[in-house]
């Protein structure tokens, strides 16, 4: 009795491989033959010997099997390729629809990928981005949480001392605009920050010259970027040179750092050592645990538990809490998450997700074109499939052929798509403001996703036609004239409906973006922003002399100074108020202004009065007495929050730990929007400052603006000869305020246009196919007396139905998506049903137009011609 050979594992592997290469007959012939010899050897010789022999026989036969197999496959492949290219050549219109659609889709996706890649690249130049955390503060109030990234000055230094896990730290304190000079060179510097020496490791700044340990150690040391060094010192060696800042402060350059990449959130021009700030501001600044003025960053070991660290920080912080009911909690946010996921930012990840989804939808629309046209026109290929099958082609070979064909299309479109994308990069750059460049296409993640897209597109668009075509029975397709693409029409309808759903959805989104932007731009803000010239004042001190200089001029209506402009008031501090329960405190925003603020911005008073020059005690902290620290104006929301019926004369107490400053309410202003309309109006208090002069706002007459500006400039020159005259019109700020939304809208305009373009291309293909298929029918109908209009209607009716059905899908989805998006805005436009109807109408008109081009041609054709056709 012969034992049956049971191959061991590596024999099995080798056989498996061989099985892939050979046809089943060849394989079994080979296997049975060597099994036979194997049995003989096993009977005579040792088992291992036979096993070894068996393995060797397979191995030595592999090369010839491989060569054989590759040769045949290559021959078939060249044949498939030839057929595919011939088909493209023969049916140029059809190939154009497929390739153009796919290419446009791929170009869109590629551009979106570039955009996304750029966004994800934020801080990627920093090798430690995963180990760096920003500390932020949470205020918990009854049922609301206020968060701010501003932290007390001494916090992070103390934490570093207490907690060993914190390897290094840096504060990041943005300094106001200051004039810096070197010899005769004088510029306003807008991007100066005070930082600790740890900043180089923490924020990934790279020093070209200087030592990162010591460069920012000493008082009056600074580090500048290459550009700044060039600007002030030209060819000279900047290290050791001195910049004079703010007229009196001499700062020595101790190092030069590389210019920052464009995708970073941190791009200061000049780093000032923190010890300088301590020296200038004194110990009152560095020991204040209550004011939250700057950002704090820490470096911790990799894989250190964040919760653990937060606990340690909490424990350490409790030692320094200045008051009993200090409700502040310290939390951590990872540096690498700051750009896209920040709880403070605009949640960039949302935009990215939207765009990726749109890109995928557009590509799918293009894939659907391919599927539809390939199956609809299957009659053209049916004979070929039949012949191949008769000649012995296996079903999976046919599948392979058609899949391969769709890959050829995908590859051609990819090449075209890359070209299209390269051409349109400047457009995207203009819209998003990112410094995008063609070379970024060569980055690994982009290349990989392109290959992925190619495979996916080839597969998605090729698989259905391949399965559909390979299932043809040779007998039926070769015998009779094949009923052209009758089966699968339902599936095709579903696909067209989904294409138009996508298009209609995108159109609705674009319209609603526009509505929301218009709504925000046209919303009355509660103050007037027209004809106001704003000067950023780099100096300090009273601006009264400047006001005096322009006082007599009738072209100047009013001048005011303020710490912040009315559209962006963002500073918080803690207050309690007369009649608050249990000394309840809340953080509310504030601005410090002078007497003319309300007048200049035309903010109406609802009750009480404005600040008055008749009283000297109204200045913020004007007297030494904390119980009478000055006067304050509140907005309506604040009065409502405090629950006062009669606000005038009531007290508001600002809490600085032990220090409690009491202010008297003298007036209530009407609510105005002092931040983006994304956010609701919150309580606000307005103080009178002695010298609030960060911004000087000048309301002017609308006539003869140029000469008014000249007059203002000459007054400015004599008031502050050191500072350049830099101004802007306040309403230009509002034009930029909703830039993000506008960019989104512009991109959506393009995308929805492209989506509907691709969908119409597909529809055009289907319509021309339908018209061609019904040529005879139309001819007969015409002879029997059908009118041309009637025929156009007949041919267009079906497509119209599809587009109408698409609305049923598109409307609820668009409604859901847009209400999600709008919920991010405190002040939002209502979703107008008219938008939906209009979008659908637009899609319908475009679809009808596309279809009618074909239908009219078919309907007008001479019936004698069409009946001759075959």
């Amino acid at each position, binding site marked *: 009795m012969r034992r049956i050979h049971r191959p061991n594992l590596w024999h099995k592997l080798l056989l498996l491989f061989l099985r892939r290469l050979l046809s089943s007959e060849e394989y079994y012939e080979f296997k049975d033959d060597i*099994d036979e010899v194997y049995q003989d050897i096993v009977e005579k010789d040792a088992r291992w010997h036979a096993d070894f022999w068996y393995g060797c026989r397979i191995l030595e036969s592999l090369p010839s099997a491989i060569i054989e197999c590759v040769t045949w496959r290559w021959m078939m492949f060249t044949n498939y390729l030839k057929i595919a290219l011939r088909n493209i050549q023969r049916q140029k219109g059809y190939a154009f629809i497929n390739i153009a659609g796919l290419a446009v889709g791929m170009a869109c996706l590629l551009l979106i990928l570039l955009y996304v890649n750029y966004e994800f690249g934020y801080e990627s130049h920093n090798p430690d981005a995963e180990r760096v955390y920003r500390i932020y503060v949470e205020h918990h109030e009854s049922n609301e949480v206020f968060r701010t990234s501003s932290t007390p000055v001494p916090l992070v230094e103390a934490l570093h001392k207490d907690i060993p896990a914190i390897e290094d730290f840096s504060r990041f304190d943005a300094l106001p605009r200051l004039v810096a000079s070197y010899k005769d060179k004088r510029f306003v510097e807008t991007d100066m920050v005070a930082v600790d020496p740890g900043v180089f490791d923490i924020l990934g700044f790279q020093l070209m010259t200087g030592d990162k340990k010591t460069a920012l150690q000493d008082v009056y040391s600074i580090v500048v970027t290459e550009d700044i060094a060039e600007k002030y010192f030209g060819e000279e060696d900047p290290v050791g040179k001195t910049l004079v800042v703010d007229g009196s402060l001499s700062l020595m350059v101790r190092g030069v750092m590389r210019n920052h990449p464009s995708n970073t959130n941190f791009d200061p021009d000049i780093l000032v050592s923190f010890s300088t700030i301590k020296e200038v501001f004194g110990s009152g600044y560095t020991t204040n645990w209550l004011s939250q003025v700057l950002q704090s960053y820490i470096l911790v070991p990799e894989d250190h538990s964040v919760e653990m660290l937060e606990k340690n920080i909490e424990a350490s912080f409790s030692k320094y809490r200045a008051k009993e009911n200090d409700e502040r909690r310290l939390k951590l946010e990872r540096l690498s998450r700051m750009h896209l996921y920040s709880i403070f930012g605009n949640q960039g990840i949302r935009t990215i997700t939207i765009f990726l989804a749109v890109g995928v939808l557009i590509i799918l629309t293009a894939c659907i074109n391919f599927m539809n046209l390939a199956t609809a026109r299957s009659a053209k290929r049916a004979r070929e499939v039949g012949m191949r099958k008769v000649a012995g082609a296996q079903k999976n070979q046919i599948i392979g052929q058609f899949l391969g064909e769709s890959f050829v299309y995908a590859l051609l479109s990819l090449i075209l798509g890359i070209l299209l994308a390269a051409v349109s990069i400047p457009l995207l750059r203009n819209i998003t403001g990112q410094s995008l460049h063609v070379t970024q296409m060569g980055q690994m993640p982009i290349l990989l996703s392109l290959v992925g897209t190619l495979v996916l597109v080839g597969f998605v668009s090729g698989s259905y036609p391949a399965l559909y075509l390979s299932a043809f029975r040779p007998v039926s397709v070769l015998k009779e004239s094949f009923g052209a693409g009758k089966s699968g029409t339902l599936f095709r309808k579903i696909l067209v409906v989904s294409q138009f759903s996508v298009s209609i959805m995108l159109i609705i989104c674009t319209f609603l973006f526009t509505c929301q932007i218009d709504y925000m731009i046209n919303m009355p803000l509660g103050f007037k922003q027209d004809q106001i010239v704003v000067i950023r004042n780099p100096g300090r001190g009273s601006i009264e002399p400047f006001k005096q200089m322009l006082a007599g001029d009738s072209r100047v209506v009013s001048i005011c100074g303020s710490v912040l402009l009315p559209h962006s008031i963002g500073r918080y501090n803690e207050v309690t108020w007369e009649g608050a329960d249990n000394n309840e405190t809340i953080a509310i925003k504030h601005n410090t202004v002078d007497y003319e603020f309300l007048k200049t911005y035309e903010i109406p008073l609802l009750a009480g009065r404005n600040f008055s020059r008749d009283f000297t005690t109204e200045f913020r902290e004007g007297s030494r007495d904390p119980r009478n620290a000055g006067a304050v104006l509140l907005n309506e929301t604040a009065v409502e929050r405090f629950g006062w019926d009669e606000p005038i004369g009531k007290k508001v107490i600002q809490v600085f730990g032990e220090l409690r400053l009491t202010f008297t309410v003298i007036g209530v202003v009407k609510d105005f929007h002092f931040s983006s309309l994304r956010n609701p109006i919150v309580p606000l208090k307005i103080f009178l400052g002695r010298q609030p002069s960060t911004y000087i706002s000048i309301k002017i007459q609308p006539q003869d603006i140029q000469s008014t500006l000249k007059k203002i400039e000459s007054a400015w020159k004599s008031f502050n000869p050191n500072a350049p005259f830099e101004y802007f019109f306040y309403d230009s700020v509002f034009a930029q305020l909703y830039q993000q939304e506008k960019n989104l809208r512009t991109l959506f305009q393009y995308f929805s246009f492209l989506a509907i373009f691709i969908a119409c291309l597909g529809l055009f293909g289907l319509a021309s196919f339908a018209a061609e298929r019904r040529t005879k029918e139309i001819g007969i109908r015409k002879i029997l007396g059908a009118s041309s209009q009637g025929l156009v209607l007949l041919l267009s009716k079906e497509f119209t139905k599809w587009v109408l059905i698409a609305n049923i899908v598109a409307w609820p989805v668009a409604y859901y998506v847009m209400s999600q998006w709008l919920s991010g805005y405190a002040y939002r436009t209502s979703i107008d049903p008219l938008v939906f109807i209009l979008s659908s109408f637009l899609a319908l008109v475009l679809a009808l137009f596309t279809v009618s081009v074909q239908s009219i041609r078919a309907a007008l054709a001479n019936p004698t011609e069409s009946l001759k056709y075959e």
Partner: protein
Amino acid sequence: MVLLTRAEEIVLLAVYKLRDNAYGVTIREQVKADIDRYWAFGVIYKTLKKMQVKGYVDKIAGEPLSQRGGRSKYFYRITDRGFQALDDIANVHSSLWEGVRLSLEK
């Protein structure tokens, strides 16, 4: 006249000599006996396939065998064209070597 390649010549001669018992294993053994070297199975099958396409050999399925899991053993038999090809190559050989006398003893 199309000449056989050397590999075809060797395998076809083996098939010829084995008559009714020419299949993978025996052909390989015959080749070994003729040229004193074992050939890989793969090479033998490849050559046989080529000759089958050219019409020098026929491939015949034998009775299904239980040792082979119910599959047939495939036998090869030389065709008339194959026989003709052998005849041709033999003629070529003899005319090539005619008058050549290599002195093998050193």
